[in-house]
């Protein structure tokens, strides 16, 4: 069931009513059942997979609590989780890589006969990357000393909670279980905040991201015909599309959770307009994944306290794995490494600024932060080509088109002007100017009075929410575009 489908907008009110009409275990049971209905509406058989993985990790958590020093048990559970993820996500990639490598070897060994790469058709279970990471976090934290969840229903709900099931945010069980144990009451402020997030997310997804999708799709299917302007336009459109798509999804999920009285972790914090550098960017983009990678990959590898070389090695390994997590293809690994190198470059730059007085002066200038944010965005345009393109060679073609001036045949600018995106983006920008705090701007001081006027009275907010829903529908394109992060 997609968050932007009509099914969901019938499903959610029904769950809302049933949830608040019940209490205690019945309430949890209803939420659990709803989560399974939500998941199984796509492919029922994978409901068994998520249930089996949940049962396995639940019992594993209880065992590990009693045998915290048993390394074998711990690594076995971690490997079992990773094996499930690897089987569904990386089998085809692994086989293709092996056959490609064998073909390379065959150039030098003529007697070696390499057959065609076998076609592996494994349908990736939606959200498996996300719930596997939640299971690993659970097992690691239990081993470290946290108390496991004893109530099976609580654990099932932690694994299957529908607002965060398919594409995060990646939850932490400690915070989630506290919320499960709370005796919740329906609060108007939660309902209004939830509806506001849902309407904002829906607008981001269908009025902004989906209107950019035809532009990026046309660009990427004709990479060799891209002119310089087209290449820049396409990459800008892609960065905006992926942000609006993923943060829109997260907003709808977080808003849905809020309607049920749950607070999910924040996943985005103005990454494209407020990131001063790439360290800052990864504190603002997909925050729940970044913090997971920090806690369960970077720090276990040794973190940053064991010398510069180890620190940089760990950064590269973490980002390489992050790339591989995003997609089973080499261009994603390259994308990860590029980000690793950009993080290292940021550390080096900061050291240099501390040493050179002239650079310090520039750094303290009032325009330094906005310019640094713009610079981060421009560098991202290049770095993300590897994320966006179908292959590394396509990515290099796009980079080439961006650097070497050329005329193209794609007419992406015309396509952009035909789309209603520019108007919906202007509407969203006006909303942002009124209601969003941008760290490097003091503009929000001037709009405080307007914000306060809306925050005081939920009826005023509800009127705006209703208009946002109508605007989202009005500006949505005829064709529904799937959420980009579902493929991960």
């Amino acid at each position, binding site marked *: 069931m997609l968050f932007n489908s009509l099914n969901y907008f019938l499903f959610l009110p029904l769950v809302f009513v049933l949830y608040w009409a019940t209490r205690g275990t019945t309430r949890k049971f209803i939420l659990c059942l709803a989560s399974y209905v939500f998941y199984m509406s796509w492919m029922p058989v994978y409901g068994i997979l998520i249930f089996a993985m949940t049962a396995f990790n639940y019992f594993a958590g209880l065992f590990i609590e009693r045998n915290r020093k048993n390394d074998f048990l711990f690594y076995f559970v971690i490997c079992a989780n990773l094996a499930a993820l690897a089987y569904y996500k990386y089998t085809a990639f692994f086989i293709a890589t092996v056959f490609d490598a064998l073909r390379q070897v065959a150039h030098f060994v003529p007697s070696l006969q390499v057959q065609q790469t076998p076609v592996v058709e494994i349908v990736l279970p939606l959200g498996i990357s996300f719930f596997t990471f939640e299971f690993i976090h659970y097992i690691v934290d239990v081993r470290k000393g946290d108390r496991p969840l004893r109530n099976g229903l609580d654990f099932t709900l932690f694994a299957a909670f529908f607002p965060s099931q398919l594409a995060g945010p990646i939850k932490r069980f400690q915070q989630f279980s506290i919320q499960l144990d709370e005796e919740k009451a329906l609060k108007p402020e939660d309902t209004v905040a939830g509806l506001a997030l849902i309407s904002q997310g829906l607008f981001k997804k269908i009025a902004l991201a989906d209107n950019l999708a035809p532009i990026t799709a046309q660009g990427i299917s004709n990479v060799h015909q891209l002119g310089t302007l087209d290449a820049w336009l396409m990459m800008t459109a892609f960065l905006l599309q992926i942000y609006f798509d993923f943060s829109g999804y997260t907003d709808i999920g977080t808003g849905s959770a809020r309607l049920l009285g749950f607070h999910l972790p924040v996943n985005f914090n103005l990454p494209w307009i407020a990131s001063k550098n790439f360290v800052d960017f990864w504190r603002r983009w997909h925050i729940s994944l970044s913090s997971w990678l920090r806690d369960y990959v970077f720090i276990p590898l040794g973190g940053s306290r064991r010398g510069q070389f180890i620190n940089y090695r760990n950064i590269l390994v973490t980002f390489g794995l992050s790339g591989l997590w995003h997609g089973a293809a080499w261009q994603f690994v390259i994308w990860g490494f590029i980000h690793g190198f950009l993080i290292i470059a940021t550390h080096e730059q900061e050291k240099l600024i501390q040493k050179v007085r002239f650079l310090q002066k520039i750094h303290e200038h009032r325009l330094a932060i906005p310019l640094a944010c713009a610079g981060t965005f421009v560098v991202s345009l290049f770095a993300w080509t590897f994320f966006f393109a179908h292959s590394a060679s396509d990515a290099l073609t796009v980079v080439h088109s961006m650097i070497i001036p050329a005329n193209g045949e794609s007419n992406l600018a015309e396509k952009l002007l035909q789309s209603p995106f520019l108007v*919906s983006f202007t509407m969203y920008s006006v909303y942002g100017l009124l209601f969003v705090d941008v760290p490097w701007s003091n503009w929000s001081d001037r709009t405080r009075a307007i914000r306060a006027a809306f925050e005081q009275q939920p009826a005023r907010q509800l009127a705006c929410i209703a208009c946002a829903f109508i605007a989202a529908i*009005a*500006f949505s394109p005829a064709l529904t575009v799937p959420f980009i992060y579902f493929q991960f």
Partner: protein
Amino acid sequence: MQKPTVRRRAALVVFLEFVAIFAAGLLVLEVCMNVAGVADEEFLDIEPVTGWTHMPGRSYTYRTEGYAQSVINSHGMRDKERTLAKPADTYRIAVMGCSMTEGTQVPIRDNFCSLLEDKLNASMSGRKIEVLNFGVSAYSLGQEYMRLKHLALKFKPDLVIFTARPNSLLYMGHDPKQGFFNARPIFGIAGDGSLIEDRNFQKHWLASSEGQRKQATRWLRYHSRLWGVIGKSSAQITLFKEECQNKLGSLTARRPEIPEKPVQAPQSAAAAKPVDSAGNQQSLNSAQMYLGKVAEALVKASNAASKNAGSKFILVYLPSTLKQRDLNEQKIFSEIASNLSLPFLDMNPQFDLLEKRDHKPLYFRTHFSKEGHEQVAESLYAKLRGCM
């Protein structure tokens, strides 16, 4: 504790604030939608003779397939403004058709009627040529006939191009599921072969709640984009309902029994649905045979009406993607032209060749792309050079 009257007054203030902010928001939205050209795809209006026609003067932006901003002219045609009286020394061609002719997916200047007009004017010296586009979305052959008789012939065309779209025969019956499309008149043939005009389904639909609603909201449909949003949402809800019904139906329905003998040819086009409610395909050929006869009667009547008005007449079978192609129907139209001794042009073979050989993107999903329109204009130009 507050007094009840104070509380009531406070609640009223809150409610009025909600209404005021909501109304202001809607006003802003209406302006933004106008600037962006969204939620204005409703450009058809109910009309008693043909069932529906374009809203005269309506401007709209179409994005479902392709992209075009269009303005309907004062006669309700998706064409540039035309005078009813034929200018002196002008040769007029009226093109009758459905959405394939209307071509709302491309700008008016890229439609095959406009392109044909340009080509003919460029090649024929001395005489001015006008190619008038009478195509309207989802028109059946019967509606084309009615539009020809009641509108197109008033423009005194010298030549009528009567186009049949792919799956024309499917559009001639009655389908209760099709909502707005039930506003169309249905045609059948009597025992003596004469054409029967059946308005019962149209009357029934116009009296239905949906029909009443469409008529009552005419002004809003014309002027409000917010109403367009409601229309867009209700179309989505209808699709969703159908999807649910199909899912539930497939869970509960029994497999339909296939009759051993072919079903008798139906006596009315209204009953002649090529696929019955159980999805039974056995009646397709007999239904097609009957609808073919109705189509022949309609083409014959259109040809006669044109002749009476002093116009020549050509039958054109427009091309379609292979997915939509119905070989039986292609054959039926070729036979109609041969039975009535009409000049006939079937564009399918040429389009197939171009698609296979040159890989030209001649269609969007269903309708012609810009290249498709260019090709139709080219084919018509080649055919007309000999006829005019």
